[in-house]
């Protein structure tokens, strides 16, 4: 906060206000009003104009291209309606690419998220040399995807690769990382995981650190062990961030290109000799820029676009549903507790009232605020609900 306030020292413009020009005060006022009213539009305009031109317009125009038999050499061909879409939706190569994309996506997203949560939980402990460990987990992030792929396509080399050498040492058969479908997907997913796990762990760590320490402390006081605290406090409170990470991982994962493109340089077909790991964006790229089929490639782009948007909305809807159903169950749970507490308290008060002056009935504290009685204290989930 202090750093943000320092500019204030220099802000009040030291130049004395110019004496109002007597002859044209009207003009100055108008100018000033114009300034206040329209300046904001000038500030946001560059973003919207540029984004519209280079971001949204091409995306919309992709749809127009997809409705034509468009070729790089002949230019816009004839109007074919939705034919490109039906061609693609019945093309086994398209479905193959979609299968590969999802397979690689799941193989990377699921282990990565689990690992990231665990790493974040470890980093959230009171480690010695905190900064060093935090830095060490994002070291892979600074290696560019192209370099990552060059490195890992060596590590997963079929003949002299590091992994196959190690398998040989422990007496296992070498795995055909570049020719078999599942191994190639695992290899590519490994590259993605290597680069991104630490990055996501730091995002989740930030969310974990936003949980007030005393919530953990009071849960520990109630006898909750580390595992119980992890599942009942940590996971629920980082859920919004988890969803954010999942959405970004989905948007990025479904557009994976660099890793499958460069995984096997000796293959003349992008994505493996039998397209074992040809992802959808790689298929699109091959269609458009090797086979000059702009119309069909645009149809693929639009289908993928719709899939990504659908996934985004699904995630959003799911998270909303989880949040609202949770709020409902918390309400139910806490009202039950409240009722139980009240009857208990009334019974206590009945006994206390017998002793004059010991307890004034009006002073019954609200149970959610109480901190002194560990046995009757509402669970930590209620605290989340109260936020």
């Amino acid at each position, binding site marked *: 906060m202090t750093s943000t306030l320092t*500019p204030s020292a220099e802000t*009040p413009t030291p130049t004395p206000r110019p004496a109002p020009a007597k002859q044209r005060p009207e003009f100055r006022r108008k100018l000033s009003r114009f300034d206040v009213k329209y300046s*904001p539009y000038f500030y*946001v305009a560059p973003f919207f104009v*540029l984004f519209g031109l280079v971001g949204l317009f091409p995306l919309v125009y992709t749809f127009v291209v997809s409705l034509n038999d468009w070729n790089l050499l002949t230019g816009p061909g004839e109007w074919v309606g939705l034919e490109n879409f039906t061609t693609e939706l019945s093309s086994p190569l398209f479905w193959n690419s979609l299968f590969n994309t999802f397979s690689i996506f799941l193989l990377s997203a699921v282990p990565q998220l689990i690992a990231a949560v665990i790493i974040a939980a470890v980093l959230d402990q009171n480690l010695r040399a905190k900064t060093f460990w935090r830095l060490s987990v994002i070291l892979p992030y600074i290696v*560019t995807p192209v370099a990552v792929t060059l490195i890992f396509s060596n590590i997963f080399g079929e003949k002299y690769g590091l992994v196959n050498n190690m398998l040989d040492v422990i007496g296992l058969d070498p795995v055909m990382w570049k020719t078999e479908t599942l191994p190639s997907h695992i290899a590519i997913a490994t590259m993605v995981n290597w680069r991104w796990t*630490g990055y996501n762990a730091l995002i989740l760590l930030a969310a974990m650190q936003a949980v007030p320490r005393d919530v953990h402390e009071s849960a520990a006081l109630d006898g909750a062990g580390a595992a119980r605290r992890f599942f009942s406090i940590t996971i629920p409170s980082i859920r919004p961030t988890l969803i954010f990470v999942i959405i970004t991982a989905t948007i990025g994962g479904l557009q994976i290109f660099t890793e499958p493109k460069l995984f096997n340089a000796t293959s003349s077909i992008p994505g493996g000799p039998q397209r074992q790991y040809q992802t959808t964006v790689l298929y699109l790229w091959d269609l*458009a820029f090797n086979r000059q089929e702009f119309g069909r490639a645009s149809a693929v*782009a639009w289908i993928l676009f719709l899939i990504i948007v659908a996934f985004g909305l699904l995630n959003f809807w799911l998270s909303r549903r989880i949040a609202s159903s949770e709020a409902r169950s918390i309400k139910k749970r806490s009202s039950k507790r409240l009722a139980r507490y009240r009857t208990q308290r009334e019974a206590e008060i009945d006994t206390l009232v017998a002793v004059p002056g010991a307890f004034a009935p009006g002073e019954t504290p609200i149970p959610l605020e109480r901190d002194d009685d560990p046995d009757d204290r509402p669970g930590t989930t209620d605290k989340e609900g109260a936020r």
Partner: protein
Amino acid sequence: MSAATENRIDRKLRYGRGMGIERRPGWLAYTLIGVIFVGGAYPLWWSFIIGSSDKSVLADTWPPLLPGGQFWINVGEVFDTIPFWLALGNSIIVSSVITISVILFSTLAGYAFAKLKFRGREGLMVFVIATLAVPTQLGIIPLFMLMKDFGWTGTLGAVIIPTLVTAFGVFFMRQYLVDVIPDELIEAARMDGASMISTFWHVGVPAARPAMAILGLFTFMTAWTDYLWPLLVVPQNPTLQVALSQLQSARYVDYSVVLAGAVLATLPLLVLFVLAGKQLVSGIMAGAVKG
């Protein structure tokens, strides 16, 4: 409360504190994080070992533990195969221009969204948030046709133009500035007769500086690592990533040379990591809380 219960709670408190909040974690945590560290660093170290050795070491079952003395010979091969310095220069130009542009336009728009009142502000902001999740990369086909029509393919402008602005940048700056600048400060500047733009310059920009640095760091990284688009528009006048990928497409692939190239291309970012690693960490963590 009786003395007995007080005593019980007191014991519990001490017990609870001892059981895991302030205590240093045990060896398990260090083992786990140590394994992660080795797993993250070893592929890089291995690349350096292979990249500095003769290609014959690849056939060894166990890779050598220490680098060989061939690194500069392999790097020489890299220079012979790809236009490394041209590519490095191109990458620096492209990433810098994109970074400056994104910072400038994001700060302007973010400031307006955070601190100025105008009609349609909420609607436009919803639009920005909605576009955060739009995969603009899928518009490459018309974008490529446009660049070709304009005759811009092969020039760095073609690489730069599509990423001059990002919705994320605007969103990020808005989130940062909305809490950081007190409204009174802007009002005071206006009362003193400052125009809107000079208020922005003297109040907005100084306050935005920390966020601008973080946004710049990440924009630079993103621009630097981009591969698909530069591969399309400037294959002959490559950026570093495109040139690096060409190392592998030579007919005869010498993996020592390829890995030497990979290590060499990672060096600039490794320097950045050493100098600005802490900012990178806090940037990732700040982005998470704000986003």
